[in-house]
């Protein structure tokens, strides 16, 4: 089975899973990626976030204990699936609180190098490179407000996981439809990869009604 990270630059499957799942939600009660979306898209008010530094970028974490524990628990499960090589995709869906209509869909597709998974081989890629790639994505999320339509009504979010079919549904999850957007606009963001996991990011959003016909 995969072993722990030994040398600094060599990332084994577990190390990679840790970075990727840190990408989705890192230790000590905080989540980088989800919060970045929640903050930048205004799902929760600015005042409910506090700033910390991670991956060389100032990051915003929610102060809302409910959201914090919700995300911490779900990312714990994502880590588990990721390490087992069973996680294919993670999708954060932003919906209108009033109508439940899906307004935005942040899609993170994960490709696991199956060779590594089976044999536990180490690959080489420096932490710095990976962090740089992650930073690039964080910046892209922040700048997404320039083209994503304003979410000017109260919104809620859901997190979907696409897993292999042989994964048992844990008690805290239920089977779901994909919550797609009808007639979406799509924008592909940078991807990052640790040479074991590769994460592709795509945001699809509902057409702004005010766009020209």
């Amino acid at each position, binding site marked *: 089975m995969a072993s722990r990270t030994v040398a600094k630059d060599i990332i084994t499957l577990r190390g990679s899973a840790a970075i990727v799942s840190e990408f989705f939600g890192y230790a000590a009660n905080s989540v980088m990626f989800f919060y970045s979306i929640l903050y930048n898209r205004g799902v929760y008010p600015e005042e409910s976030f506090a700033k910390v530094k991670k991956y060389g970028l100032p990051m915003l974490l929610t102060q809302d204990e409910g959201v914090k524990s919700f995300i911490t628990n779900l990312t714990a499960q994502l880590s588990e699936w990721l390490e087992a090589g069973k996680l294919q995709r993670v999708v954060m869906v932003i919906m209108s609180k009033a109508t439940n209509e899906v307004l935005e869909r942040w899609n993170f597709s994960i490709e696991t190098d199956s060779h590594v998974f089976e044999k536990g081989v180490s690959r080489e890629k420096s932490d710095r490179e990976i962090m740089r790639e992650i930073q690039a994505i964080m910046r892209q999320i922040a700048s997404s407000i320039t083209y994503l339509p304003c979410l000017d009504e109260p919104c809620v979010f859901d997190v*979907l996981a696409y897993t292999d079919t042989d994964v048992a549904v844990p008690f805290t*999850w239920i089977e779901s439809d994909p919550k797609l957007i009808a007639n979406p606009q799509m924008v592909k963001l940078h991807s990052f990869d640790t040479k074991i996991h590769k994460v592709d990011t795509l945001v699809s959003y509902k057409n702004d009604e005010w766009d020209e016909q």
Partner: protein
Amino acid sequence: MDESATWRLPESDWYSPRRLHDCPTHYSFPQAYRQKLIENLSLDSQGRPFKIMVFRGSPKSSRKSIRFVDELRQEVAAIFEKDCKQTPYRCIPKGEKRVLDAPRLRNDYYSNIMSWGINNILAVALGPELYLWNSEDQAVHKLLQVRGGNDWPTSVTWSEDASTLAVGYMCSNLQLWDVESSKLIRSLQGHSGRIASTAWNGHILTSGSRDKSIINHDVRAANSLASCIKRHADEVCGLKWSTEGNRLASGGNENLLYIWEASKMSSSKFLHRLSDHCAAVKALAWCPYQNNVLASGGGLSDGCIKIWNTEKGICINNIETKAQICGLEWNRHHKEILSGHGYSIRENQNKLCLWRYPSMTKVGELGNHKSRIINLCQSPDGITVISAGADETLRFWDVFGPPTAGAGNSMVSDLQGLLSFRTSLLR
């Protein structure tokens, strides 16, 4: 060209922003495509089948949680998720229902000079005098006055059935009064310092003192002293028995919070010793809808409301109010907790803050006190809260209502409602 082929654009094209410029922004996907999409939904780009799950965060996790604290928090949250009805937003009153003048009310953080009994009588000590105010007819009656000038009541608590009023004094005396006849029943000895806090558990009266000890008196016995506990390193300023009467929480000026089991008190063996606070722990309140959940509030250098699972001795939630906390009251009708504040360098000074439970988000704040709040207490029907301020006023806030007509959470308030009804009949 068949329709389905039109839509099979190469990946790079589909995702390219240029496409958005050059192509019309509205697409109506034909039925055939939709069909294809649905079929393809169960297979990813590599032809691997998948299933989709959404996270629901419900109570029991099938695997051991990495964070035990989060698991506990989830348990707490989940119990409410199951039982709660969607209560419509209700108005928090901006102003007081009533203000009573309270001249000579002592500006002393450590005293607990107010108690509202089930008989609807509010007992409040103003300086050396103790007054009774009847909330039904607003009649005022002076129960006692201490002569001499160097002694005064420092702690006032009604027994659970409001038959007896316990009054603790600066000079360490502890008295039991029968209010109907305005007579002193007995004096209890034992302490050597002022009585900062008192709490009833049936026929047991527990007192906490500046002499650092906690004494349990059995008020029926001739020799009342049932047990004496010397664990605190400073004045015992907070004392509260749980609603079932099995646990006692004691807060001290040395910033410690102890949890005691009723059955083990004579051996001075505490159940938990909690040192998370960085200032005196005066405000204590047991949760009315969850057994063994306790809220504690810290003094000026702390300003935190901590929610504890007293079964496991773990802090399950913590909210920084950044102000001295002098009192905590749970809302029995809605899942909320109210904190009363004194000094602050930042915010919430002299205010009452209402927090949603268990998320601990701030619902609102009230308060027109010109200086710090010293004590809080709530009415027997659980609707009104009184704040006693150093500005020598008692302000009444109808902040906890309206009462909900639901089972479960409001079971306590229904029972309470029955009791006050019965009591007022007797009157």
